[in-house]
């Protein structure tokens, strides 16, 4: 267990360093003089020199990289060249929205995905399995941003069931907050729930044909315990890793969903930054995303090892 942990930590650290180098190099790969790009419209020689100094562009690459890393580590991600606001505060105000949206989406997707996956596996060869499979296939194939458009068009605008856009912070009004987020979270969760459903179904089918299920049946356990405990516990170990692997898709999906529902989150920040060529913001957004991806995946792996006793407890045999 300890060796596994150390190994996993080491791998994550390597990936993080590589990711930082990629982001750093990406900014240097911007067309033309990075100072010009960073300056945006404000191009008098004075501010260009200030920018060169601020970003250390007059220094060697190694020094520049070190400055980039040490600034980032202290949370100093530069300033927006559009508004002059520190990028850190922009990100800190946008992140809670995205985190809440993603957590809600994962919850919804897990409930739907695991439920439908179990039903499909248990009701093998019956209409219920057929329906669950068809829904999963649809969920994988439908462009979820289009589904979002349709939901706004028909559920929000025509029927007035949900607000079409906007956001209310959770702590100022929890009910309104959920009311605003439930539809985006459902939409964001569709693709993920399809993936979870398929994975749950196939690992449940594997589990249900395992010898230990035959043992559980031979013990006279009720179906609830055979399926809900013995089979599900084993399949969920696999499902957890799949959810971890879907994190990238979830982040991408969140960007689009926020765009459609006009949520003031991380995704909106990202897209706006690209169109405004706000390079410090783009750089920070990419770095923060990569870092969170690596950290969350590490956590998922640790969770995985906690759930699975074969990793948690070393065998003596």
């Amino acid at each position: 267990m300890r060796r596994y942990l150390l190994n996993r930590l080491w791998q994550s650290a390597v990936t993080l360093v590589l990711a930082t180098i990629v982001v750093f190099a990406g900014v240097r790969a911007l067309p033309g003089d990075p100072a010009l790009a960073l300056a945006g419209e404000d191009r008098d020689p004075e501010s260009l020199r200030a920018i060169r100094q601020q970003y250390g562009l007059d220094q060697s690459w190694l020094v520049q990289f070190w400055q980039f890393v040490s600034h980032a580590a202290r949370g100093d991600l530069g300033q927006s060249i559009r508004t002059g606001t520190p990028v850190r505060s922009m990100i800190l105000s946008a992140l809670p929205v995205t985190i809440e949206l993603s957590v809600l989406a994962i919850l919804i997707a897990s409930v739907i995905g695991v439920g439908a996956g179990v039903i499909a596996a248990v009701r093998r060869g019956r209409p219920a399995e057929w329906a669950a499979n068809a829904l999963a296939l649809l969920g994988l194939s439908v462009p979820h941003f289009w589904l979002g458009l349709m939901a706004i068009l028909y559920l929000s605008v025509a029927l007035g069931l949900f607000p079409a856009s906007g956001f209310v912070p959770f702590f100022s009004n929890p009910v309104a907050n959920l009311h605003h987020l439930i539809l985006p979270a459902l939409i964001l969760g569709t693709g993920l729930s399809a993936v979870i459903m398929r994975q749950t179904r196939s690992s449940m089918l594997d589990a249900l044909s395992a010898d230990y299920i035959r043992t559980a049946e031979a013990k006279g356990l009720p179906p609830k315990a055979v399926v809900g405990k013995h089979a599900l516990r084993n399949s969920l170990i696999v499902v957890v890793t799949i959810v971890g692997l879907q994190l990238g898709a979830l982040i991408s999906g969140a960007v689009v969903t926020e765009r459609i529902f006009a949520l003031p989150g991380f995704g909106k920040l990202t897209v706006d930054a690209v169109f405004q060529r706000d390079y410090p913001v783009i750089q920070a957004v990419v770095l923060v995303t990569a870092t969170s991806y690596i950290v969350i995946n590490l956590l998922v792996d640790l969770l995985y090892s906690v759930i699975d006793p074969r990793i948690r407890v070393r065998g003596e045999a």
Partner: protein
Amino acid sequence: MKPVLAVKDLSVTFRTEDGPLSAVDRVSFDVGDGEVLAVVGESGCGKSVTAMSIAGLLPRTATVDGSVELDGTELIGADKRTLRSIRGREVAYIFQEPMTSLNPVFTVGHQIIEVLRTHIGLNRQAAHARAIELLKLVGIPSAERRVGDYPHQLSGGMRQRVMIAMAVACDPKVLIADEPTTALDVTIQAGILDVLRGLRERLGTSIVLITHDLGVVADLADRVAVMYAGRVVETADVHDLFAHPEHPYTVGLLRASPAAGRHADAQRLNEIPGLVPVLTEQPDACTFADRCPRALDTCTSSQPQLTDRPHRVACWNPVREPVEV
């Protein structure tokens, strides 16, 4: 004496992509109180399917006909609830693969406690104490500590002992052991057989021992039923069968086995030529005729029935003369 388990005309057919597949054809046998009946045969002869069908453990693709009476209660066609209350409580199973037959994500203690709580309704503490007792009963050292171990922390032999502890947790009338020693090292096999013998003596459990290993049969069984291609071809007292096998297939089986109480180097092992046939339907003929050195014309045109004597054999041309095996 009335048998504990009476199997009569049991037939099993599987629905497959290529049509129906007959796995077991009108198998009958009785198991008395405290008796060990060995069911032997090559792989694919239907012995495991027979075992699984007793408590309704076959998949939905199987059709089971005939009768299985446990202490006078009919099990074939019984509803699921009845079957569940019998499984683990009155009929318990031990399987071949101790590696995979235990659930890897629960402790062995938990898996034993589960049976106790389901069938006897013991509370947590009582079930825990009983689980430790059971582990001691099957000879697991430092059972108090082992009860909290996960299956992967135990050796194959220990895992099989856990399986046995789980099976006898509710003191079942019949224990069905499906190749209980096949996956284990020879040195460990003996220990497991000792445990089974001890259980029979101490608890008086009847045992149906499914195996292809005649050494195990000689070690443990009182009576033997020899199966071939889904049919019982010979059944007799274990000493009688080893001394005077009458079915040519049994003779072949004994000659192909190195154990069974004779010197391994006394004679070259003989294999029986050919393979067990896969049957889509049961023919009105002896299914062994193709491989039989003693086949007559009758053998391919009419199915021999089991004779009605203590030593029963289904053969048109049984071996009556003493054979050297």
